[in-house]
């Protein structure tokens, strides 16, 4: 079936062309949160719901961390130019270094939130069990 093969090769070439144009036109911006309200709205859309009582934004708006009334922690992690919700498993150690917070020894989850970083530490482990 050469016609089918031709159609496939043509389509594949078109896919490569479109992705290249998208890249060249700068469709590779990273995700950005404009304010706490936007972060709150995204946290609320989480599967099972997540109602933040406290939110900290990354200083560049590139991520967010939040706590709900039950003491659960969650993050908005950038994925392309959008965000994905991630619940931080309970009892995850939260390390604070200066202005930044790192949950569970995962450097890629490090978020720089400024002064308030200290408030998110849970090194005194009972903290999260309310």
């Amino acid at each position: 079936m050469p016609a089918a093969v031709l159609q496939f090769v043509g389509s594949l070439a078109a896919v490569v062309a479109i992705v290249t144009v998208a890249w060249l036109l700068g469709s590779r911006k990273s995700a950005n949160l404009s304010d706490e309200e936007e972060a709150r709205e995204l946290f609320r859309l989480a599967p099972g719901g997540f109602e933040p009582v406290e939110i900290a934004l990354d200083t560049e708006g590139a991520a967010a961390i939040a706590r709900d009334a039950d003491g659960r922690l969650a993050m908005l992690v950038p994925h392309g130019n959008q965000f994905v919700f991630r619940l931080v498993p309970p009892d995850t150690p939260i390390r604070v270094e200066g202005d930044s917070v790192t949950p569970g020894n995962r450097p890629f989850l490090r978020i720089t939130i400024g002064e308030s970083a200290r408030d998110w530490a849970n090194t005194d482990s009972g903290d999260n069990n309310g």
Partner: protein
Amino acid sequence: MPFDPVAYAIPVFVALILGELLWTRFAGDAHAYEWRDTGTSLAIGLGSTVAGAITGGLTAALLVWVHGFAPLSIGWAWWAWPLCFVLDDLAYYVFHRSAHRVRWFWASHVNHHSSQHYNLSTALRQSWTGFVALSFIFRLPLALIGFEPGMILACAGLNLVYQFWIHTETVKRLPRWFEAVMNTPSHHRVHHAVNARYLDRNYAGTFIVWDRLFGTFAPEDGEDRIRYGIVSQLGTFNLFYAVFHEWIGIARDVWKAPWRHKLSYLWREPGWSHDGSRETSDMIRRRWLESRGEQ
């Protein structure tokens, strides 16, 4: 091989995607497209044409077989075309509604929804596993009534082509009469939204009237910004994960579930769980209404 409108439409799809890319870029919307997301969407689309080539013959054969039982053959009369298109669109509505309400069907349809973007490239995220998910059964009744299998497949293809252009944020609202009858970008944005108020709404293919008729219509509301995708966002651009993740999820759930609940993980709605540990879209909507102080 029956006439396939989709094959002829591909060059138009490509041109329109490039047009939308340029348009959004020069309108200053740098977030409309994401190059890796676009790559995943288009690769899913390309893969679906391969899957279609493999299983298309089987679907056609089934239609021909069922057509043999039809009490009368409608043939190729000119008036049969619009009638076939409208009835096929109704069949599409039923298919699409089931695709969102039965997890076995959803496992195939989910990859149309798993992008967090809503642009013309999203339209091409078509399923690879539609045959396994039995999508063809919804079109068999048309053959049984007596419509020509070739006509049914052509109408199905035209319907798919129609649905391409509505996957865009660049078109806001169209004239009132058009929005009343036809599926439009506005109506279909609602369908792709994960906002609680919009979940499981606007299943229409070409004509929105089915949703209005069967109580599944929701108008686009300016109140909150639409967020696209699925309730548990994928968080990856991996092509194969995007295509198969829900099938993997089903296998895992069936494996782990107690015997008397195993089958429910196949036919119950997405998000259903035997221990109530997850949420269905109805549960999400209820929780949202409660949070607004409504019942």
